[in-house]
């Protein structure tokens, strides 16, 4: 038997009506699992303008200490909007298996 985790409650453990009793716990939901393509930034071409950060529909792009914008792979669904909007074409969508 696999270990029972919080993701695998028994039917008796579900709250009445399947309500979610803890506010804000959507941040724990790993939407990065959905991704089939991963955005990869070519730092030679990146001008650190942040247009990818503005367009990301999931606010999954953050700014690094060096000022580059990169995706948080825990949330990034790999939609590719950042790559489409990037002015310099510095973001490539690379299949996950590569």
């Amino acid at each position: 038997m696999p270990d029972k985790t919080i993701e695998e409650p028994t039917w008796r453990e579900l709250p009445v009506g399947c309500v979610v009793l803890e506010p804000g716990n959507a941040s724990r939901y790993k939407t990065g699992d959905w991704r089939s393509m991963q955005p990869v930034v070519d730092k030679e071409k990146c001008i650190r303008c942040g247009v990818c950060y503005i367009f990301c529909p999931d606010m999954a792009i953050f700014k690094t200490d060096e000022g580059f914008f990169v995706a948080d792979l825990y949330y990034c669904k790999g939609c590719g909007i950042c790559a489409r909007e990037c002015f310099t074409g510095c973001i490539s969508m690379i299949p996950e298996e590569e």
Partner: protein
Amino acid sequence: MSTNRKGIEVSIGAAEAIAMADVDVIAAYPITPQTHIVEHLSEIVARGDLDAEFIPVESEHSAMSVCCGASAVGARTFTCTSSQGLALMNEIVFIAPCMRLPVVMILANRSLSGPLSIWNDHSDVMSIRDCGWIQVFTENGQDVFDHVFFAFRVAESRQVSLPVIVNVDGFILTHMIEAIEYWEPEMVRRYLPEFNPVNRLHPDKPITMGAFGMPGIFTEAKKAQNEALLSSKVEILRAWKEMGDITGRYYKPVESYQADDADTVFLTMGSLSETVSIAVDRLRDQGKKVGQVKLRLWRPFPFQEFRQAVKHVKKIIVLDRALSFGGPGGPVASEIRAALYGEDNMPLITNFVAGLAGRDVTVNDYMAMAEKTEQLAGSKVRQDDYIIYGVRE
């Protein structure tokens, strides 16, 4: 006991019972198919006699959606519909029980089109047989009046927290003028406590209702819902017992008439039961050992009580008010046969689909069904054998 009896249209009586139950939100689409129940409630609210929100929505889909939202914030919530209206609200009907929202709905049973029809049968309720609501059937105006309080009491019980449908035959019951013994306000207060939900939407304690369920928990969610419906029977029985103690009228999941020594019984649901009782009396006068078993509780299905009620019976005549096209006949007979499958001395079960879209079924018709069943004794009747009674060939 009480002398508080009134001769009144059943729909109006039902509306007044709902007002006496101090409902907070009523949402309904005000057009055919609809009854005087919500029409009269809208008048009661407009007059200022009931402090409630009456929301005349733009469709039944919205009616049930409003009911779910209102129930989620802790409001006592009611709606009423029939046939096509039920079909339109179908999507949300299935969501309410999973979210454990104790909405109460009176379903004035009418046939689903087509052909376009407004008359009485059970094709509407049978289309949502598996929706997960507690479902009861009523036989007369007093039943309907009493079951308004019963429905709120059971639905809102914290041990249950499930929606309840009270089935009332359209026209045959909704539009009849009958003698109804009204409850005193004090009886309602004693029987029906304030609604105190398990969970409610409130800014002080934010929760999420109606979130999605991934494959990893969906099966557990459905099992939990099924267990909730099965175990609601404890509160259903308690609510009927306590109502009996207050009113003197004791209702049961399965009720019998002249069935103790019967070797043949009619199995009926809803308002035609009273006509069947007359047929039973006539057949008894002819010396035939015929009785009647009535299903009042449809969901959760009272397997134990039903098997007990027909234990000694040799033949069951099941009356269906709907047809499962291309299937084993009527949905009720299908379940009755399933309930008795594998029992010792399984009785002969004949299935008559009758009274579709308001076609009268008279005492003589029931006597003819008994006669036909008598002729079939000793022959093999299969699961998919049924008779569409009275159809012109």
